[in-house]
Every structure is written in C-alpha cells, then in structure tokens.
C-alpha cells in the first residue's frame, strides 16, 4: 500500500504523465510505474494502470478505491456508480463537432435528407448533443481515426475530442461546434468513499491545493 492508504487506478495514455506527477506530490512513489511500461499492477505503490475508459469500471467494482479519468469517459458511461470528487484541471480537451473544411455537408444533409450522418467514438455524448439541439442524426460508431470518416464521404461530420485541433486541421477538417470541455477528474468508489473517508478526504484536500 502507498502513502495514501488507497488503491489508485491510473489511466494509461495522455493523462498518465499528469496523474503520476500529481501522485508524486502526494508522496506516492511512482518511479516503478514510470520505469515499467508493460506492467499493469503495482501492489507496492497501490497503483493499477488501465485504459482511461476502464477506470470507472475498476473503481465502480472496488478493485481501486479512487481513480483518474477524463470527463469524456464519465459522460459516455453515466450509469457507472462512482463519486466524481474533483476537477483536476489537466488533460483539457474539447468535445467538438467537425466537418470537412469549405462545405456544409451537415447542414446540407439535414436540409435535403432530413438527417445528417455523424461518425464518433462517443455515441452517447453525440446523440445527446444533437437531440438537445433538435437535429436528427444517424450515428456511425467507429473505434479510431475518426477524421478519416468524412474524407471518404461515409459521413457528413464527426464528434471527437481535440486538444489543439491540429489533427483535425491536418486532415482538412474544421471545428463547427463545441459541445463540452473535458478535463481529468478524480473519482471514487461509493463504498470506499464511506469506509475510507479520512484517506479519501486527505487526497482530495491535497489535490485541491496542487490542482489550483
């Protein structure tokens, strides 16, 4: 067990560096995690490393007491029973609607065909956004390289997460709407939140200090 007395689910990928930096400041020894890219379970440090989209799953089932994941993941899995305790501020990205630069394929399809085709990895966020804005869309679920979908003519536009917009621009896409800004969030298992209240409050208190 680590200095916090908690098992922590750390997201692999873009949020991992920022999360490990925060844990260092809490006094957790993350050296082994940093040195070992393939290992997943670090019992000594009280850390498990999982895909960001799996963090709520591990935390909900109590395999980890707390975890860090993106707000986009939480919005995409609202049925997960976890506490969302803190906006950690880093990993800032925008969930956007984008289309091929220069033509209005989404508007044109809506006008002439009554619905637009939208490719995304985030079908719940995209579905809710178009429903809330009164537009009918057909969602095409894809797993990756979403930018390709409108270039091939398969869809009129995409909903995707972007930090700088560079990948979109390099593929000849432009952002037309911003849906929500997503940052890293600290989440907790509902039972751990009660039974390990002091440990969790200590982490929240310390992170509030450093996240500001």
């Amino acid at each position, binding site marked *: 067990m680590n200095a916090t007395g908690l098992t922590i689910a750390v997201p692999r990928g873009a949020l991992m560096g920022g999360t490990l930096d925060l844990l260092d400041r809490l006094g957790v020894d993350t050296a082994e995690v940093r040195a070992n890219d393939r290992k997943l379970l670090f019992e000594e440090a009280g850390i498990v490393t999982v895909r960001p989209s799996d963090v709520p799953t591990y935390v*909900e*089932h*109590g*395999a980890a007491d707390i975890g860090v994941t993106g707000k986009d993941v939480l919005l995409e899995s*609202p*049925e*997960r*029973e*976890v*506490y*969302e*305790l*803190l*906006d950690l501020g880093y990993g800032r990205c925008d969930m956007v609607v984008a289309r091929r630069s220069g033509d209005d394929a989404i508007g044109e399809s809506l006008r002439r065909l009554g619905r637009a085709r939208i490719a995304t990895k985030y079908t719940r966020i995209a579905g809710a956004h178009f429903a809330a804005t009164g537009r009918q869309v057909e969602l095409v679920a894809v797993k990756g390289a979403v930018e390709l979908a409108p270039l091939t003519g398969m869809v009129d536009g995409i909903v995707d997460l972007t930090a700088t917009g560079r990948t979109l621009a390099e593929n000849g896409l432009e952002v037309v709407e911003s849906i929500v800004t997503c940052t890293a*969030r600290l989440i907790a*298992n*509902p*039972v*751990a*939140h*009660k*039974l390990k*209240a*002091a440990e969790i*409050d200590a982490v*929240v208190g310390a992170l509030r200090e450093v996240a500001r």
Partner: protein
Amino acid sequence: MIHQIPAGTRDVLPDEMRELRAIEGRLRAAFADAGYGEVWTPTVEYEDVLAAGGGGGPAAFRMFDDQGQVLALRADMTVPIARVVATRFAGSDGPLRLCYSAHAYRAVGQRTGQQREFLQTGIELIGLAGAAGEAEVVALAVEALGAAGLARHRVGVGDGGLYRRLLAALEVPDDSHGELLACLTRRDLVALELRVEALGLAADARDLLVELPQLRGGPEVLDRGVGPAGDALDRLRELHGELEARGIADRAIFDLGLVRDLGYYTGAVFELYDPAVGFALGGGGRYDELIGRFGSPRPACGIALDVQRVHIAQTAEEQQR
C-alpha cells in the same frame, strides 16, 4: 441451440443455492428471533395500487390480465407491506414487526451485473416513531449480517430529506432544486459545486451546500453546524445515543450526503456496506408518510438486504481472512 434467459435474471444451481439458502435462513432466523413475523404478498399487484405508494417511479414490468387490468411486478417489498398494514392491520395500534424474504423486480441499465430480479430479505417496524424505531432496525440488520457470516460490515446513517430541506431553508430558487438534487443523486460533486457557485449565495450558505455531501464519519460529523437543518442533526444525534446504548455505535458511519433513490423516505436513511465489496448490501430508512397513502398514517421504518450481495460479501470476507 442455447435458449437464453432475460438479461439481469439467473439460474441458481445446487452448490450456490445451498449457500444462498443458508444465508437467507440465518437472516430470517435473526429477524424471527427478534419478534418479526414473516409475511407474503403477491408478486404481481395492480399497477395503480403500487403507484399510489410512489417510490421508485413507474413499475419496470407491466402486463394485462384477462380482465384488461394492468398488473405490475413489485419493485420492492416496502410498498406492498405498507398496503398490507393499512388494510389487514387497520384496527391495530402499538408496534407491528414484520419481515419478508421475497423477490422484487426493477429495470436495469445496459451494463452487466445489475439484477432485474433480486431476492430481498428485510424487516419493517411499524408504529414506533423516531430514533427508537430506527435504532432497532439498524441494530437488527447489523446483527443479522453478523449471523450470516460477515464480521466487518458497517452501516451508513444519514437523513434522506436533509439536502432538500436545506435548499428550501437557504432560499435557493425552487427551479434549481431538481438539478442540484440530481447532481447529488448521481454523486457528481464537481457539477454540484459549480452549480452552487453559480447561485451567488452568501459564503457560509455556499460552503454548507458544497461541503455537506462530504461530511461522513463518526459522531463528530454531527457537530458541524448546518444552520437551518439543525433539527435533522438533533435527530441523528439522538439515534447515535440509541445505537450507543445498543453497543453498535462503532458500526455506524454518519453520512450527511447519503441519499437513497426511492422517493418515500421522510427522515433517517441507511445503507449497509462491507469493506470486502465495492457496493452496498442493502439499505432502508424511515417512511412516515407511505402507509398513509393506503389508509390511516403510521410512522414506520425498515431495512432490506440483497441476499445475493450478502453472499458475495461473505465469500469475499472469507477469502480475505
């Protein structure tokens, strides 16, 4: 060819069934020994009768009978028992102690692991108002879980109406109550804080609304001044005294942010935990207005335990020993 069963239902085979029945038997014996008489109610009832109890929204499963009447599967046992008390025990006064062990039915989300059909074993204590009644059901649930083989279980104790009353007392505009309570129910404390900030309240009112869901722990939690909602804390302090007298105060976690999603709770609410598993084993609370919806009002409170979850916790505790 594999013939499927509906998601959220399951077949139970002999090895598991033996253990489930053993646990259920120990829970029922603990309740019977404490003077709780077992009742049985129909699995299907008229939809409008169940709906009169309010609670968890519309029934998840409905059907028509041969007369064209709409029947529904019960979503819990508390509403049917409230109906039984108001109709079969209409003339009785003095405390009434009832227990049950029966299946109830709820809608499930898309994720796996949630049960549409689940076995609940529980108690209802009718006619004993206030902390005395609450302490009796909490103590009995804790004892029953011990008899079922758990050693490290705890009980969360809060007040289901605390946040709602606080919003009214702090003169938060009515139209924002729903949103704030929804944040609390889905445990999104980040959104809750943002929305409270946006209300532009005085600093102490804002801090209270933000901090309250985080206030949980021993009886010292009850010393936090909660201004206009202080009477709820007085009642929880009284409950703490009763639990101390019964020697189980150290099992209680006072949790001012505890909310239960059933709509009929009017005061104290409970949730049972075991450190070996990441989900609650059951819960309950005080529902002083529910029986009145079926007849003359009587104060009441109860707790239901999910037998399958207790079983999972018991095996997990066993493995950790």
